[in-house]
């Protein structure tokens, strides 16, 4: 199958998957105990007032009609009204998406650097102390909850060394980059802990393979063999994980966004779940699902650039 046909097929699949996501999230928020009307009006509200509000918010309409309004609205680019803030969901969500995206991209960039550096370092020192040190060190990052890890970074790099701000997002583009560094590093170190294990193993495997021995026999220099042959091969699988991690970075950065007070989708999501603000929860879920799917498609497509032998079925 050619690349164009493959992309068409994947985009078609994406529609089905998104359809599934909308059904699951729509059903799920409505099974959740808690009536948005009372949560908005407060504990003192009367039943009659709540009923009026439900009517006004459209929560009294048949479930299928509500679902249709959600899906058809989304298809038109209209994400509805927030129940809690009484303003268009688009206004609320879309200005937060770039923050979460920037955090994810930043974290992935840092993770790529850290993974390449320490993955290669560990692999070529297999069994010796740098290898052991890196493996134990990143196990530490893997087994440390990031709400704790984030605070440690703030204490060390923010408060004691004063290299970075403690928390917040800043006002200008340059400040954003600077403010986002610590939260991105928190995520990156944990992501790297996963990736390094994989990359190290892949490099060790590739180094053992026949064609690397051939390359050596042909007298190619160590670094050239490493860069041109080994790394390119090893990266294939590491890249897959990398892509799959994206969704978890966007969705899972919630805790990090809270610790570092970043105005991203994660914070809004938590608030909206607590308030049972259905349209906002639905919108954030679908947006992050789209991102996950698109990024994974891009990862799959990048295989053929890394390795021309890859074909798509």
């Amino acid at each position, binding site marked *: 199958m050619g690349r164009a046909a493959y992309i068409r097929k994947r985009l078609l*699949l994406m529609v*089905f*998957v*998104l359809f*599934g*996501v909308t059904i*699951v*999230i729509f059903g*799920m*928020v409505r*099974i*959740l*105990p*808690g009536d948005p009307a009372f949560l908005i009006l407060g504990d003192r509200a009367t039943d009659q007032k709540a009923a009026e509000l439900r009517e006004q918010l459209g929560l009294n309409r048949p479930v299928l009609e509500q679902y249709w309004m959600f899906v058809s609205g989304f298809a038109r680019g209209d994400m509805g009204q927030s129940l809690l803030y009484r303003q268009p969901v688009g206004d609320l969500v879309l200005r937060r998406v770039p923050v979460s995206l920037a955090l994810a991209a930043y974290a992935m960039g840092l993770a790529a650097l850290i993974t390449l550096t320490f993955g290669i370092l560990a692999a070529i020192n297999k069994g010796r102390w740098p290898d052991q040190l890196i*493996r*134990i060190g990143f*196990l*530490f990052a*893997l*087994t*440390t*909850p*990031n*709400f*704790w890890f984030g*605070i440690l970074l703030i204490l060390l790099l923010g408060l004691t060394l004063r290299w970075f701000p403690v928390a917040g997002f800043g006002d200008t583009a340059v400040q954003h980059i600077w403010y986002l560094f610590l939260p991105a590093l928190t*995520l990156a170190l*944990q*992501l790297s*802990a*996963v990736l390094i*294990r*994989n990359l190290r*193993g*892949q490099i060790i*495997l590739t180094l053992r393979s026949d064609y690397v021995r051939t390359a050596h026999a042909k007298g190619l220099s160590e670094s050239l063999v490493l860069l041109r042959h080994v790394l390119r091969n090893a990266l294939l*699988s*590491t890249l*897959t*994980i990398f892509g*799959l*991690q994206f*969704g*978890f*970075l*966007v*969705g*899972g*950065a*919630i*805790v990090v966004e809270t610790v570092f007070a970043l105005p991203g989708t994660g914070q809004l*999501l938590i608030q909206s*779940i607590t308030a049972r603000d259905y349209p906002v*929860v639905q919108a*954030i*879920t679908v947006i*992050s*699902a789209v991102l*996950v*799917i698109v990024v994974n498609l891009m990862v799959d497509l990048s295989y053929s650039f890394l390795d021309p032998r890859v074909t798509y079925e």
Partner: protein
Amino acid sequence: MSEKAFGSPHLAEVVPLSKLGRATRLGKVRVDPTLLTGLVLLGLVIVVAITAPLLTPYDPIEQRFTEAFLPPFSPGHILGTDNFGRDIWSRIAFSTRLDLQIGLLSVSFPFVFGSLIGIATGYLGGTLDTILMRIVDVLMAFPFLILVIAIMSILGPGLTNLYIAVGVVGWIPYARITRGETLATRHLEYVLAARTIGCSSLRIMLRHILPNVIAPALIYVFTGMVLAILTGATLSFLGLGPQPPTPEWGAMIAEGRQYLLLAWWMTTLPGLALLVVGVALSLIGDGLAERRGG
């Protein structure tokens, strides 16, 4: 943390172990330093879990307000005390049992279920495969935290529901691993041979394919256990983990967080306990993977 709980599943998947050599069963014994270190460490942890009441002079939930916030190496409290004056060593030792249980239970069902699904879809292919893989896609694209908060809110807090919440997505990595492996083995000669002599699909899957594809999934179990305990910690951060005053590492880390600037040991020490188990399980996983690879 959710990103870890989800992401690393693919660790083992993308290192298709069957590529490394013909599948060998896990039975053969060869002393490998990595594996041995891991087993010894895990053994020590299990010993602590079993003998916890003998190792600790205190009840892990007993409050002594006059002894609150004692730092490590205080007389009578080797690892110090928490905000209620509870002995931290006692709490860590007792929670070893619970955490091993969380690791084991929240991984074993997804392992069995996921592996069977993976083999069935990989071998049978067709509509079943398409449908299940789309379900996997949907779950993968779905923000983990919404799923977990929703499940915990609907079912209520508690350990059983924690296992269910983790299990709803926990089976996916095992399904993906074994499906990939099955796809690679189903055209191998012995499978084809079994089919020509008229073995049923069920028999082929269970007798011929399962033993050959299960090892990578089993190796992943060790990473999965660490991730399950960490997921528990995230849930505690959100207040949906094991209920207080139950001693549990993840909950202890989350509870200690508010006193981080006052009593670092409340979060750090249970964190180190988690690290020890993480190192043990990872070493075992690595050791097994290396043996297969070697």
